[in-house]
């Protein structure tokens, strides 16, 4: 079981309130991703759940029991830190076995569990090495191994992939998702990378300055963002926002259209403008088009666009996919 509920949880450091009252329910077996810009309180929230920070007020429930005052080691949660936090003077085997040793598991049992975890994580050949002799990805796996052997109610990850290079990140992302499928344990995963959030999560929690901007499945957030912050944060490239006359025509303060929902043509369309810089990714091209009287928009087209810098082009938004926001940035129905 790994059901976690936060009830009116707040956190202040001195006089600065980092987390204003916050409510959140995490179901058993869910893969929940906290995502948000740097400094929005993701790590703080995770550390509150782990028990490494004390809540200023509010309540944390784990499996229906009040865990607010329970020390970290008794919460049944395992955490993987951004810096991996491996014990440098212990071999990989001893690192992974450490929680078992602390729990006074006997040696045979300990070895069996360590071997099993090492098998899952492809670490069998490295068990006698020190962390200093491993690559970043291998260290990451050791940190995960140390979490797995405890058989926790839930795993907490704090930006575990941010120290890895792009290719390895994609790999580890898949491995962690795979692990979630096979263990079916609750996982809470912190990242500032919306791609990681979209690809891994069952449920995304978007945080903005300590507040929850929106909670939902990746596609819910993509299709129906509740506010401008979420609309701008989820999706790559970023959603285009248009204010002024064009927005007023739609009865909104601001309208938003994703780059993939803009159609490009040379002969006619809703808006007309000049093509600026084009970013060619091979499969896609991102065109920056300066629309007369509207501003710069990013357009995503498939393959080669066949337009050059300075060409005139017409752009038509998909009317079904226009998001409308009021003056406070909230989505209009």
């Amino acid at each position: 079981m790994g059901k976690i509920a936060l009830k009116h949880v707040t956190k202040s450091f001195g006089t600065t309130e980092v987390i204003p009252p916050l409510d959140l329910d995490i179901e058993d077996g869910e893969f929940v991703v906290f995502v948000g810009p740097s400094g929005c309180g993701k790590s703080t929230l995770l550390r509150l759940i782990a028990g490494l920070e004390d809540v200023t007020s509010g309540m944390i429930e784990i499996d229906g029991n009040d865990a607010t005052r329970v020390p970290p080691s008794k919460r049944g949660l395992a955490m993987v830190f951004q810096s991996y936090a491996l014990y440098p003077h212990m071999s990989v085997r001893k690192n992974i076995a450490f929680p078992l040793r602390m729990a006074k598991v006997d040696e045979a049992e300990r070895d069996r569990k360590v071997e099993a975890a090492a098998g899952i994580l492809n670490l069998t050949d490295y068990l006698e090495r020190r962390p200093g002799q491993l690559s970043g990805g291998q260290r990451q796996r050791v940190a995960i191994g140390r979490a797995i052997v405890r058989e926790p109610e839930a795993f907490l990850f704090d930006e575990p992939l941010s120290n890895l290079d792009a290719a390895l990140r994609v790999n580890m992302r898949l491995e962690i998702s795979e692990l979630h499928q096979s263990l079916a344990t609750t996982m809470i995963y912190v990242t500032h990378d919306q791609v990681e959030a979209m690809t891994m999560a069952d449920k995304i929690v978007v945080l903005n300055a300590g507040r929850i901007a929106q909670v939902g499945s990746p596609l819910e957030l993509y299709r129906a963002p509740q506010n401008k912050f979420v609309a701008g944060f989820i999706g790559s490239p970023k959603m285009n926002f248009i204010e002024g006359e064009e927005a007023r025509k739609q009865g909104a303060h601001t309208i938003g259209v994703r780059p993939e929902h803009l159609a490009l043509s040379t002969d006619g369309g809703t808006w007309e403008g000049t093509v600026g810089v084009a970013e060619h990714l091979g499969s896609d091209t991102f065109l920056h088009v300066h629309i007369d009287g509207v501003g710069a928009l990013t357009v995503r087209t498939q393959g080669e666009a066949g337009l050059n810098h300075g060409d005139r082009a017409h752009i038509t938004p998909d009317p079904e996919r226009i998001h409308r926001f009021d003056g406070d940035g909230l989505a209009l129905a």
Partner: protein
Amino acid sequence: MATQHSRSAARFMMAPAVFLLLVWMLVPLTMTLFFSFKKYLPLRGDSMANGLEWVGFANYVRFVGSSSFWPSIQATLVIVGGVLVVTIVLGVLLAMLLDQPMWGQGIVRILVIAPFFVMPTVSALVWKNMFMDPNNGLLAYLWKAFGGTPVEWLSQAALPSLIMIVSWQWLPFATLILLTAIQSLDSEQLEAAEMDGAPVLKRFWFIILPHLSRAITIVILIQTIFLLSIFAEIFVTTGGAFGTKTLTYLIFQRVLESQNVGLGSAGGVYAIILANIVALFLMRIVGKNLDA
């Protein structure tokens, strides 16, 4: 950097310093060796000008044969070992204490370092006269306040008292090095251990202490080098009495009190050998800590 040219330039520029160091070491060393094979009693009229009598290993045999030799080796090792244990145990505790965020941290740190700035002679005198004096010392008052008989520290418990005085001087050094080591410990490691179910003592044993092992090694090495030759503290407190006569002090007595330069020089050579044995021993057991 390491071109042929820059290397020879570096060698050339280092030469004066190396030369000076060599002279600094070699001249006294050869002179000690030279005197140790001679009969040289200045008060009996021996002098370099008259030529000194060659006595072979007689001085060496006599130095070891003296009834003070083995006790002096023992006293040396007890003092060095005692001070090492006290400074490292207290140093680790103090370093952990000073690492905690607290009010007035800057001032407390300066206070802790302060004893290091006091000259050994002065601090030993302060201890002798202000704390350990059986009539007027603070400790005597303390004992009397509780109805006890004041202890004559420097005669009844001379070795422990000396260890205490020297430890007081060296504690700041150990604390300082251990404090910087503690500060370099990644706090996430401690948090990880906490989540892994390690209570405070186990976190200390499994995380903090191994992290400090290299710093402890350095403290042991450096302090041993200096502690083997402590002198002033003994000179102003017990004058070598009550079992506090170390090898260094014995040599001093032979040369200056008995005015036997040859015998003292032989003792000096023994001291060099002892220091090297200890150094070799330390390098063996702790050296691997340094390159890990």
